[in-house]
Every structure is written in C-alpha cells, then in structure tokens.
C-alpha cells in the first residue's frame, strides 16, 4: 500500500453570505428617503396655486406652455443645463491642456499653467464671474468698438469655464502623476518621444483614473452655475429671484429653485455613481 495517499483538492464550495446588518448597510436607504421626499414635496407643491406659479415662472416665464413641457425646453432649467454643459466641456478641454502643461518639464509651459491655476483658484468663483461680466466683457466691447461683445450667457459660461479649468487641471495633473513612472520609462525605452508616450501610454491610463472625480466636478459645476445669476443669466436661481422680487413670495420662489436644483443634481449624482462603478474596474 502506498504511503502517499492522493490528496483530493476538491472541497465543498462555501458561499460567502452577507449578514442582515451588512445588507441593511449596503442598501441605498438614503436614496429611497430622498426620492420619496422629493416626490412628496413636488406633489404637495403642485397642489398649491402659489407654488405652481413659482415653478411655472422658473421653468418657463413666458407662460405659454404647461410646466411639464416647459422643463428642459424653456428657460430656467434649460439655461442652467446649457450653461453647465457648455462650461464643463470647455473646462474639460482647457483643463486637460493646463494639466499637461503642469507636468511638463518645459519651464515656460509649467510656470504659465501654474500661474493660471493659482490665480484662478485664488479668486472666488463669484468674484471671477462678476469680474468677467462687468469688467472683461464691457472692456472687450469698448476696445473693439462694439465689434466683439459677449452676451450675458456667454460671459457667465466664460467665467465658469475659466474658473473650473483650473480645478480640472489639477485633477488631470493628479491623474497623470498617479501613473507609475515605470510607464513613461518603458515607453521611452522603446524609442517613443515624450509626446508619443504621453498620448499613447500615460494619458489613456490617467484619464481613465480621473473619470470619477471629473464626473463629480460636473455635479459641483451644476450647483455653481447658480452663481451666474449675478450677471443676470436667466437660469434657475435668477428666475426664482425675479419671481420673488415681483411677487414677494420668497418662500415659494426659493423652495422651488432648491427643489429643481436638487432634482437635477440627484439625477447626475446617480449617473456619476454608475460611471464610477463602471470605471473602477481597472483593466
């Protein structure tokens, strides 16, 4: 008889199970409460004549269509989304360029981008938007004898985009710096130039890594878009302020604005969570 008995590697499979409290912890109760709360608040508000008027005014001051049709296609919500999306796209591109400059070995590129980032981050967004709206835009108009004049919306978009570009630049820079230096060395050792290595090896990995924080900044920007109300861009907050100043119904006006912002940000927060989940799986 053999002393060496064959050891079977087969074992009964043990499934790991979550405890009840773990399951309770992982379920998005907060989301349920939030969605229920918003729905209840919305339904309650629609019962009230004053709230209906306030909501109507914010989403569609022209009073020509119903509230449901007014959302997304008329002013207020539409302008908020327009300002946010356009500013964000500009900031994404400008931020990427600045972020690449921030990690560059070229002293001119590095110091120019660092100067930009520090100045923009050192000025409150509100001040930046006011400054562009009331100093830069009129200044440009006068300097060009009226040939070049940005609209209020364009001025607001410029302020948000230029300010956020500085923040996004730092996100990109952190992403690029988080890539192990062995990646650049491997690419260069194959004969790639710095630019080729950046484009084909570093940036694809870095950008993948910063998709969640970039998406997060979209939500932050959605909220900060309320700041452009100070240069009279007719977005949600500005419409609400206009409504309040006409009717003196601050309660209805600002509650409606807050609710609309909350609905919009939540929609995108859930989207961001979905994106984060998808991108977290590192290849």
């Amino acid at each position, binding site marked *: 008889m053999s002393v060496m008995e064959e050891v079977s590697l087969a074992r009964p499979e043990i499934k790991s199970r979550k405890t009840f409290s773990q399951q309770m912890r992982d379920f998005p109760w907060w989301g349920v409460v939030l969605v229920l709360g918003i729905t209840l608040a919305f339904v309650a508000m629609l019962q009230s004549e004053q709230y209906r008027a306030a909501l109507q005014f914010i989403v569609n001051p022209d009073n020509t269509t119903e509230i449901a049709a007014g959302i997304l296609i008329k002013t207020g919500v539409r302008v908020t989304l327009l300002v946010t999306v356009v500013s964000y796209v500009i900031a994404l591109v400008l931020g990427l360029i600045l972020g690449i400059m921030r990690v560059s070995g070229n002293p001119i590129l590095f110091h120019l981008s660092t100067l930009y980032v520090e100045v923009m981050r050192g000025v409150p967004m509100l001040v930046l938007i006011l400054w562009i709206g009331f100093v830069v835009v009129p200044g440009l108009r006068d300097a060009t004898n009226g040939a070049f004049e940005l609209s209020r919306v364009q001025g607001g978009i410029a302020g948000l985009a230029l300010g956020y570009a500085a923040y996004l630049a730092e996100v990109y820079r952190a992403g690029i710096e988080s890539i*192990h230096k*062995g*990646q650049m*060395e*491997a*690419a*260069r*050792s*194959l*004969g*790639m*130039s710095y630019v*080729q290595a950046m484009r*084909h*090896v570093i940036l*694809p*990995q870095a950008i*993948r890594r910063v998709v969640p924080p970039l998406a997060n900044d979209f939500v932050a920007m959605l909220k900060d878009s309320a700041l452009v109300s100070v240069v009279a861009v007719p977005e949600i907050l500005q419409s609400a302020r206009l409504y309040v100043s006409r009717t003196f119904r601050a309660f209805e006006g600002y509650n409606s604005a807050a609710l609309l912002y909350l609905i919009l940000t939540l929609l995108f927060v859930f989207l961001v969570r979905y994106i984060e989940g998808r991108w977290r799986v*590192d*290849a």
Partner: protein
Amino acid sequence: MPEPIIKTVDLHKHFGQVQALRGVDLEVMPAQVAVIIGPSGSGKSTLLRCINHLEKPTHGHVYIDGVDLEDKKTKINAVRAEIGMVFQLFNLFPHLTARQNITLAQQVVRKRRDAEREQIARDLLARVGIPEKADVYPGQLSGGQQQRVAIARALAMNPKIMLFDEPTSALDPEMIKEVLDVMLDLAKTGMTMVCVTHEMGFARAAANRIIFMDEGLVIEDTTPEELYRNPRHERTKLFLSKILQH
C-alpha cells in the same frame, strides 16, 4: 578589431549626495552577454539606465555603436529604439492587451504597417511561449507571463542590444525559470545582452562575462568560471559567499 557596441567612459552619476556611479569604464562587444552583479546600491541599475539614457550621467560619456549619447545632436529616441529594456516590475501598459503592448511602439516608432506588426507580435508571443495570451490584458497574466510579454515587446523593435534590470527579482520562484529560459534562448541567437541579475545559474549558462560592481565602481570584470574559482578581491569573495550560501 571590432568596435564595442556599448562603451562608457569615466561615467559618474550623482543623486544629490549619493554617488551611484563613480567612474565606470566599460566596453561591451557585439554578441557579448554580460551579467552585472553586486550588492544593492552598488550602481548596477544606474549603469544600465545610463546606457539607454533613462538616467543622464552627471559626468562622462556613453557611446552606443560609436554615437555619443551626451552629444546634443544625437537623436536619443532613435538610439533607444535600438536598445530593448526589460524592467524588474515589467512595466507593461495595463490598458493594452499583450498583443497591443507589442504592436504600439512598432506602430508609432517604427511606422510598420498593420499586418506586419501583427505578424511580428504573433511570432514573438509564440517565441516566448504564450501565443494564446495575445488578447489578454496584463492584469490577467502571471508575473512570469507578464515579463515574457515585456521581453517580446522589447524584441519587437529588433534591437541590437537588450538590457535586463533584475528581470526575475519580482517573480515567484516557480516563474523564474520560464523567464530565464527565454533569456537563454535569446543569448544563443547572438544578441548583445547586459543583465543585472543574481541568477548565478543563468550567468554560468549564458554569460561570457561577469562584472562585479560595488560602491559605484567596477571591481572585477572576468568570466563566470574565473569569478567562482578565483575571485581576486575580498569584497567579491564576501559577496559571492553571501549569495551562494544556499
């Protein structure tokens, strides 16, 4: 008399206060397989990295095929394309499949056509023994497999020189052999190789030259047999006794 394919002259490299290299003169002939050994911090990796200019020497010169890397007119990317390098931590591109890792530099540096570079990638993956892993991402490969892809990636450029920087140090013991086998085969093809490694079995089987470094200097430069039989310096003896003990 053939010219050395790698030549360093009075090479110094300082990192702040640390003097990693303190005057290294080295000549490597075509088709030579040189193994560099030495205690950690002796400057072996730094020397290797100076040869393809990943580190810029503080003083001295590196000549590849007679071309001075310190000369401002030297096109460093073109020189590097002729020098393959294999890293301790593989440094595969994690966002690309094994095949794409091998074809990327062929495309952007060598400007090879699609069909040609795909064919080369297939051939090389077969040569390193993992043809079935072409479309797998590095994260799904074992350490040994990753290192073999890394070797294939370097070979795809048809380099004249291959540098190995402790290619098996990060591997589990059972994977070391599969990588050393690939290196051994490569040595037989007449590739010029400079390997920083403590795999003495590989040194004995493949190297026609072994270089012992300590404190930024070349202490001994001889054949593997000679080094084992008759180490001339105390420091070499001490080092060998430490790594050959078990």
